[in-house]
């Protein structure tokens, strides 16, 4: 999947970022649970990754510290 820029409402606390609401394709997605968090370095920029659950969907979103932008990396349905 190609990365897609998204808008994210997040708050910063205790040196961490907590994404709360994702706006993607004019849809508002409320973050219900952050299941995992990790970092990566790409072209000398630090990226923060979040695995998120919302409703019956999983989202992998990324925050680029160099551009201050949020991206949707991957999404999948949880219908098992």
């Amino acid at each position, binding site marked *: 999947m190609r990365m897609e820029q998204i808008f994210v409402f997040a708050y910063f606390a205790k040196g961490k970022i907590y994404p709360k609401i994702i706006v993607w394709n004019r849809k508002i997605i409320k973050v219900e649970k952050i299941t*995992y968090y990790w970092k990566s370095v790409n072209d000398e920029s630090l990226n923060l990754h979040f695995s998120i659950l919302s409703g019956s969907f999983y989202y*992998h979103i990324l925050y680029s510290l160099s551009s201050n932008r949020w991206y949707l990396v991957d999404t999948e349905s949880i219908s098992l």
Partner: protein
Amino acid sequence: MKWWVHLDMDSFFASVEIASRPYYKNLPVAVGENANSGGIILSSSYKAREYGIRSGMPTYQAIEKCPSLIMINPDMEKYIYVSDILYDMIKKIVWNVKRYSIDEVFFFTSTKDEAISKSILIKDLIKKNLKITASFGISDNIIVAKMASDEFKPDGFFIVDDSLAYIREREVGKVPGIGRKTEKKLNSIGVYYVKQIDRIPFSVLRNIFKHRAYFLKEISTLLTKKLEPLDGGVDKSIGQTHTFSEDTRNMEKLLSYLSIITENIERLMDEKFFEGNIIKLVIRYSDFTTFTKQKKLGRYIYRGDDIFLEVSKMIKTMNLVLSVRLLGISVKGLRQRGLCGNIFLSDGYSQKLEESIKNIKIRFGDRAIMKLRDLYTNDRSFKNRRITYL
């Protein structure tokens, strides 16, 4: 007395993915490359293992075995990040942690109780912070600790009090350091369990397995106390010299030849299964005066890279007054090497790399693969190998 702890993450890549996507828990999950591109399985969940899916298996074969298998593309950056977090976490608890691979570490403590309490603490922290599990093996022998961590996977914890009794009852193929080829050879002479190695006279083992016979003997007895210097070991030495066709003062050239010499010394040391702690560098100048420098190390070495590191330091501190005609290195203070202690000194990747380089050299010749620093020793190789200078 040292108590070794081996920590092995349970199906590491798959567990990290399941922690990210908890709805995959209790389902057959595998991390691997696409079946269409001839990919392989890198890691599989324990549920997937029930279907016979193993790491290294071609993806198409895994899907044949379990059509409902959930395939996840590997995200190495994620796994490296989690591995780094794990390593930093353990480092805060034990000072002597040694990373063996992306999902395995060793450390040791001075008492068994300390090993147990620290392991329990680390185990809980991994579960709490990383949401994955690890298995622990504890023993007074490093090889046995590694074997023990495999006993009760996943989320296992196994303490071996009598290492010798434990290892002697195990199949030879289960011992780290004994590969499939060695296992087959051992089986062909009627050795299936470690305890059976004792029945084979050492001279026979030496004939069949060359220097690896020492390792086999050592695992069947777990005796590493024989690391005594050889009779007259301080005087005995293994060394090699090189005489230049044209005298030189070019440091790069000298280092390049030193590198080749150290590789040859490693081979000689390997044949006899020696290691030494005294390095001697010999330089003969163009006027035939000879200069020697000797250094006693605080540790025993046998690897070419380690010897090169020492001699390169020595030659760099020397003031070469004339062009050099001859270079020589010798290793003294020899003793028989104890593999049980050394096998995990370098990480798993380096060991595999070294093994592969050795195999390429055996098959295609010494010049088939070289370190960049060695290329100076054969100028033609630049041209033949199409290496372009920019």
